[in-house]
């Protein structure tokens, strides 16, 4: 046989070359996969090779400005399973399912279904109490159960339930903030979740020799609000009372702001909800048909109880807007408080604009025009300024832009972009455009603080767990709107409105309060009237106190009091007055009584102690205190001894009230029937009560609209019954 010749050797060498070439290509290819793409593949491989269970971080606490907790996170636990491990490593899977079902109070079928899933990880139950978690652990140990994990979790708890619900907001089951500060401050509150990583094979089974890695969760930071829990409580109580006293159909809002820095001390909207069960069925909803999570239900919640009316809703401000018009006139020098004005009817483009009391105060000063809330006075002032100038102030006071408050869902105003004469005329007294309550209180803040428009806000600080400040919210001045002088003048006028004008029901002896009433009809008003219902008015009162050194601005808005003609100031002013009284007292601001105040106060007297005295002595003592008397008992001799008195000593009564003197030891004190005083004047009502031997506690002015004890019921003689009076007029 011939040995391999040259051509064969050449071809063999060629084959060697081909093999070498392809080997080199493959080496390069492997290098490409391992070196160039190694990181990426490694990451992908790691993701599939590890089963990771998340540990929720502890969500930060939300505090009020005095570090009272408003939203806290409690430690709970979550139970998860590795279905594959449960199936394959336990002797009796059925027993595992029933044991777990019993401890967790769940359906066994649900658990079995999850055990049979082909996943690496199934959630059994979230947010169980720690002791239930311990039970599961003990049970696992006792029965040698494998593949079930009990891991840390947290749950949100709101100690004050409904208080400041719209400000605080709430979280979902994954601890994500979905409303209020919980939503807006999510990035600070949330924290970083931790993980437990364990190595698993392709079927999801944990490797016995695998490593388990624990990555500590990073807790969220705490948020401190500007809200004062106590003031919030005052505001909510006042708003609730106003709503129930006046049959308010659509709820309302109350806002208290520090005008010096824009910090909101209280912000409430009614109806509200319990933060601990935000999805519970609101009043009037069928609980059986309610899920709280269906689209329909959530929409209903958003429309009603979840709705933060202070920020999300717009309304016509009515006369509460007049100070803005006044500010423009004063700042521009178009008018002074003492300028003579007239409220004679103004005619614009075929429309007549009258005062609420047509042509009643024909000649008055501008100051009186504000006191009396005469629309034509403001129309004329706006006309004098002209459209450009007038609207430049409306713009400067922030009514063309959102305030930028740190709460979700703020609405923008609905206001003329190209205003006409008639637009301006109606706008001058707050009609035919819509703003949010928060915009109005921001404007009042500027009037109060010397002219700076400041962004209202609810978050004061963010601090970490050791108290280091991470973020501090400084007051943000948007712009200067009016001068200090204008501010001072206007506050003085507004104080007059409360002292002697339409806002006098808000007066609190000892505190200097400035404010303005407001009423506006809504678009559907006429329609409601046709249906035989009361017109839907929105009534409000906006106030500044104390006017010489303002520390609070207050706005209370009521949407649709079910009353024939509510008359703005009358309805809301006393609520605001009482609220301001409570807040300023709480803040430790001393009352300074003017002579006027003293006169007002003098009308109330303290009942002296006449028990054990002779009738004669008692009568003298009562006369000195400007009180009247009535003797009960057969012995009316002046030397008889007073055995009992009603009311008891130290009670406060109006002058000329009656004190009943008993000359016998009454077993059952004499009773009297309460008269019906509805629609009577104060004088008439007082007479009727006197006749019945009952004392009247006069609340408000005007005609009686309600009485504390129903007519026809009996009370003890000499008892005190509160009667509420109101001036029924439009303003």
């Amino acid at each position, binding site marked *: 046989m011939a040995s*391999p010749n040259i051509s064969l050797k050449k071809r063999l060498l060629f084959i060697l070359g081909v093999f*070498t070439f392809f080997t080199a290509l493959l080496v390069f290819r492997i290098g490409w996969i*391992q070196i160039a793409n190694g990181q990426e593949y490694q990451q*992908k491989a790691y993701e599939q090779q590890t089963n990771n269970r998340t540990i929720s971080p502890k969500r930060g606490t939300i505090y009020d400005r005095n570090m009272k907790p408003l939203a806290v996170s409690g430690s709970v636990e979550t139970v998860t399973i590795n279905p594959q491990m449960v199936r394959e490593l336990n002797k009796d899977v059925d027993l595992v399912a029933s044991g777990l079902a019993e401890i967790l109070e769940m359906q066994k079928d649900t658990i079995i279904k999850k055990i049979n899933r082909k996943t690496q990880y199934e959630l059994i139950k979230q947010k169980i109490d720690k002791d239930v978690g311990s039970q599961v652990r003990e049970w696992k140990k006792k029965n040698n159960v494998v593949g079930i994990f009990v891991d840390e979790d947290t749950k949100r708890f709101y100690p004050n339930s409904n208080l400041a619900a719209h400000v605080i907001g709430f979280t979902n089951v994954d601890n994500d903030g979905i409303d209020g500060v919980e939503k807006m401050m999510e990035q600070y509150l949330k924290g970083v979740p931790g993980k437990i990583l364990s*190595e698993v*094979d392709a079927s999801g089974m944990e490797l016995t020799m695998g490593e388990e890695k624990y990555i500590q969760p990073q807790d969220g930071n705490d948020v401190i609000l500007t809200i004062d829990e106590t003031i919030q409580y005052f505001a909510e109580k006042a708003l609730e009372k106003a709503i129930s006293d006046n049959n308010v159909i659509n709820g309302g809002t109350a806002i208290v702001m520090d005008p010096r820095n824009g910090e909101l001390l209280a912000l409430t909207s009614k109806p509200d909800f319990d933060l601990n069960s935000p999805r519970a069925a609101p009043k009037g909803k069928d609980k059986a048909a309610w899920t709280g999570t269906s689209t329909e239900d959530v929409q209903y919640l958003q429309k009603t109880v979840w709705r933060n009316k202070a920020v999300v809703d717009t309304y016509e401000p009515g006369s509460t807007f007049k100070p803005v018009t006044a500010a423009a006139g004063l700042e521009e020098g178009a008018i002074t408080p003492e300028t003579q004005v007239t409220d004679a009817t103004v005619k614009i483009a075929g429309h007549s604009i009258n005062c609420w009391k047509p042509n009643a105060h024909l000649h008055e000063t501008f100051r009186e025009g504000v006191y009396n809330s005469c629309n034509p006075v403001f129309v004329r002032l706006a006309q004098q300024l002209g459209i450009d100038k007038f609207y430049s102030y409306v713009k400067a006071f922030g009514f063309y832009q959102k305030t930028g408050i740190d709460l979700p869902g703020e609405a923008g105003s609905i206001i003329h972009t190209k205003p006409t004469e008639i637009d301006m005329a109606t706008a001058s007294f707050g009609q035919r455009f819509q703003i949010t309550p928060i915009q109005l209180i921001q404007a009042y803040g500027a009037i109060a603080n010397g002219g700076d428009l400041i962004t209202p806000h609810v978050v004061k600080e963010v601090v970490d767990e050791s108290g280091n400040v991470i973020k501090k919210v400084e007051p943000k001045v948007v712009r200067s709107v009016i001068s200090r002088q204008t501010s001072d003048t206007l506050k003085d006028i507004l104080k007059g409105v409360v002292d002697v004008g339409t806002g006098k029901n808000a007066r609190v002896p000892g505190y200097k309060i400035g404010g303005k009433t407001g009423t506006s009809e809504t678009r559907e008003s006429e329609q409601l009237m046709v249906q035989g219902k009361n017109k839907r008015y929105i009534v409000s009162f906006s106030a500044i106190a104390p006017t010489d050194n303002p520390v609070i601005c207050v706005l209370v808005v009521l949407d649709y009091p079910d009353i024939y003609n509510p008359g703005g100031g009358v309805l809301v002013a006393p609520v605001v007055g009482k609220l301001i009284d409570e807040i300023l007292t709480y803040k430790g601001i001393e009352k300074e009584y003017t002579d006027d105040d003293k006169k007002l106060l003098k009308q109330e007297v303290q009942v002296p102690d006449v028990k054990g005295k002779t009738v004669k002595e008692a009568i003298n003592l009562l006369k000195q205190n400007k009180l009247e008397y009535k003797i009960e008992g057969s012995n009316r001799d002046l030397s008889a001894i007073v055995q009992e008195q009603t009311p008891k000593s130290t009670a406060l009564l109006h002058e000329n009230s009656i004190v009943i003197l008993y000359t016998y030891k009454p077993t059952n004190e004499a009773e009297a029937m309460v008269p019906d005083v509805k629609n009577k004047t104060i004088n008439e009502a007082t007479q009727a009560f006197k006749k019945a031997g009952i004392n009247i506690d006069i609340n408000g002015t005007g005609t009686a609209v309600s009485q504390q004890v129903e007519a026809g019921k009996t009370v003890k003689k000499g008892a005190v019954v509160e009667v509420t009076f109101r001036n029924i007029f439009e303003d």
Partner: protein
Amino acid sequence: MKNKNKKPFDFWIFAAVILLLSLGTIMVFSSSYYFSVKEVGNSFSIIKPQLLYMLISIIVLAVTMNFDYHKWGKISPILLMGSIGLLILVLIPGVGQVRNGAQRWLGVGTKTFQPSELAKLSLIMFMSFSLSKRRDVLKSFTKGLLPYLILIVFICGLVVIEPHLSGTIIIAMTGFIILFCAGAKISHFVALAIPVVLAVVGAVLVAPYRFDRVKAWLDPFNIEYKMNESWQIVNSLLAIGSGGIFGRGLGKSMQKYLYIPEPYNDYIFSVLAEELGFLGSAVVLILFLVFIWRGIKVAMNAPDVFGSLMAIGITSLIGVQALFNVAVVTNSIPSTGISLPFFSAGGTSLIFLMFGVGILLNISRYSNYERF
């Protein structure tokens, strides 16, 4: 013209094969024990028989390397006839064992062997033997080349209907390399390439599932294929990629925890790449290249054309299979089930491999060249 002075066998070939086989056996254990625990409940269920096969294969090697290769020429027609008989036998329903839809095995229970393995070697022997005597007529297409083409196509046809696509490719490639080295006209090969390319394109167009395979090959991480067609290749790439330059360390593969199905089999190289990294992978490829280089050197220095052609046949058989396997697990070509010589677990193939290596070593004993 027998060379009576037998020389020592080629050390490089022997060393490369022993190194590859040792590393391969270690990798079989590393990659199989978790699978064995999970599937059989005994971590040694795969490595134990593999060690036995290794022992048998070494004995086979010892025998064939001392058996004068010239004798294979005379036996080869009988062996080839026998192979063809067995290839037909395995196709008879009820006779051949069916696994994963392929009918490739003869035997009882787990004691089986693949006739295609025997067919590979006997075809190499027969073609080398026959061509060494008919090289002069090979230049003629009809008289020279055509009969061999018919033989290759016939055997490939029997293998491909098992079906055993990778076996078919290896047999065809090896056959063509022998024909090429024996001196077939280049122009004939070029002319042959045209119908082959057309056939491949036609096969892809005719069966849509093959088209899907090609698409899965081009985009294995596509969510559409990831859990199905390309699950193996995706996990193979993740394994190789995880290895980086130095690897996770011997025994530390994560992808062998059932992410790669049967990690001790066709995809054993991926586990090796994950555990030993780029360095380990490169060493293995270089060892194969050393084997090929020395195999070709033996072919070039063989005392006769028969020895030369048989040497290149055996070298190609192993080289082609190794490169194909690595190309598949690195997703360099569309995937097909092909094992890695000396690495993948399995009895028949290893024994026949060592059978062939033994013949190659025996040829080297008659060759005239510097051995070190």
